[in-house]
């Protein structure tokens, strides 16, 4: 599953859009197996774009991205990663179990094998019993758990998550944070996690990458040395507050970058 050496290796990555906006500039980042790396930064810092470049969903302008030692493109075709969006993106016309088995169907798994794996994954995210439900019958938090189950169903080395809990309320969010850590431990995967929330980033990660905007750069990297396994009490430790403060100060120091250029009217581009 996870290769020795780097899972993700980014070097000199730059991304500019046709409109002249530079989303990312000279990004260098290495992610080791088993890490939980958060990307945090103000709107427009390119964190989501960076995530998508790793997933080969966006092409970089220059620089190299290696995932599992291969090009991002190869990694995508080899199904080396799973992705979770802020919107759970479940298909209304499929039941919960069929939503989870979607990537497995595309990989050509046999029906029996799919069934077993779906059962395992739903157990992992604690949604056993909801196999035949439809997505709209579930709460937002439950939908996201299905989305996570789906992303992990084929045992990818890497999990990319784009503000997966952004649309949920604080309490559900904290609960899902704990669940995610539990899943991370059990599945032994590497996670790259984009978020807006400083406490969330500190609570979940082994490293927090702080980005600044316009152009998108890495301003700072904060190592989170809180002990594992983490739980509710972790949020109340003094060290937690110190780290949150460190990240906050790194964000402020990274600054807002240059003033935003006005985008031409009619273009729909957000990072």
């Amino acid at each position, binding site marked *: 599953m996870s290769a020795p050496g780097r899972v993700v290796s980014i070097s000199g990555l730059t991304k500019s*859009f*046709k409109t002249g906006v530079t989303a990312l500039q000279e990004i260098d980042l290495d992610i080791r197996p088993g890490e939980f790396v958060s990307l945090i930064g103000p709107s427009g810092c390119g*964190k*989501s*774009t960076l995530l*998508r470049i790793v997933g080969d*969903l*966006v*092409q970089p302008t220059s620089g190299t991205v290696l995932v599992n030692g291969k090009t991002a493109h190869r990694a995508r075709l080899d199904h080396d990663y799973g992705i979770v969006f*802020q*919107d759970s993106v479940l298909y209304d016309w499929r039941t919960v179990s069929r939503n989870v088995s979607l990537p497995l169907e595309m990989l050509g798994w046999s029906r029996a094998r799919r069934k077993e794996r779906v059962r395992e994954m739903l157990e992992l995210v604690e949604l056993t019993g909801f196999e035949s439900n439809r997505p709209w019958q579930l709460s937002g938090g439950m939908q996201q758990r299905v989305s996570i189950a789906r992303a992990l169903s084929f045992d990818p080395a890497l999990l990319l998550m*784009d*503000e997966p809990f*952004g*649309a949920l309320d604080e309490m559900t969010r904290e609960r899902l944070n704990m669940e995610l850590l539990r899943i991370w431990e059990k599945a032994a995967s590497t996670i790259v996690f*984009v978020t807006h929330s400083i406490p969330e980033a500190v609570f979940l990660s082994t490293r927090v990458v702080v980005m600044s905007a316009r152009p998108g750069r890495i301003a700072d990297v904060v190592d989170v040395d809180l002990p594992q396994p983490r739980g509710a009490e972790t949020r109340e430790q003094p060290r937690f507050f110190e780290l949150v403060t460190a990240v906050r100060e790194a964000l402020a120091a990274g600054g807002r970058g240059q003033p935003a250029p006005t985008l*031409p009217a*009619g*273009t*729909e*581009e*957000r*990072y």
Partner: protein
Amino acid sequence: MAMASVPALERHRGIRVGASRAGGALRRVGTFVAVLAALCGLWEGYKWLWEWAGWTWPFTVDDVTMPHLHDILAAFAEPTTTGGPVLIDSLLHAAWFTAKEALAGFVLGALIGFGLAVVLAHSRLLERGLLPYIVASQTVPILAIAPMVVVGLGSKGLEGWKAVAILAAYLTFFPVAINALRGLHSVDARALELMNSYAASRWKVLWRLRVPASLPFIFTALKISATASVIGAIIGETPASIQDGLGGAIVNFNQYYSLQPTFLWATNIVAAGLGISIFALVALTERVVLRRAPENVA
């Protein structure tokens, strides 16, 4: 919600071309000309191929079933009766006649439909009672009743064009009512709460909030009804009692089709032109009133 701009991937369906206005318009005209030319080519090509091969499926092709395009165009300049007006003249007059009928009914129907929608939006009871019929009425083949209405009312002395206008009004009334109602109800609950916090009267809420919200829905219905009104007008004219309109022209030229096929084709081109013009008029009005591009889907 963060969404990377990805040229290679999907964008929203309301694609806006970021290019300059002039370039876009030029491209639009160019595509139009190209497609038109392609269609003409297709017509003549099909005709040539079928005549050359002698195929009779789906129908035999000759100068009567498929006149040459240039012959049809030439027909516009020919007189319809010896010494009479040229075809294009009489067709344009007929089109204008039909247009007036259709528009009169269209406007009347739209006003009544809108009024009804306002009433139903404010009375749950009336809505419950009448809505099913308004919905079911759309499945009644109004167009099927058209000749009967015109003949019947005509025999009572009502001028032909008035009966046709009533028909057009009927065709417009129901779609407008249903869509306007949907639009009046489509107001965001929070916007309503805001209005209530201003202690706004029902009337104010209606005009400041509901009506503007319902306009896109109403225009959708108007675009459909505009077309339907023209069709209704043409159908209504066909039972040979109204000679002055396009329907009458169609019936006339249909009788002499084997002798002069181009006249009927020319009439259909004018009828198509009428339908498209009225539709375009409504679409243009929509653009002006709503100050945005009309929805790309009919």
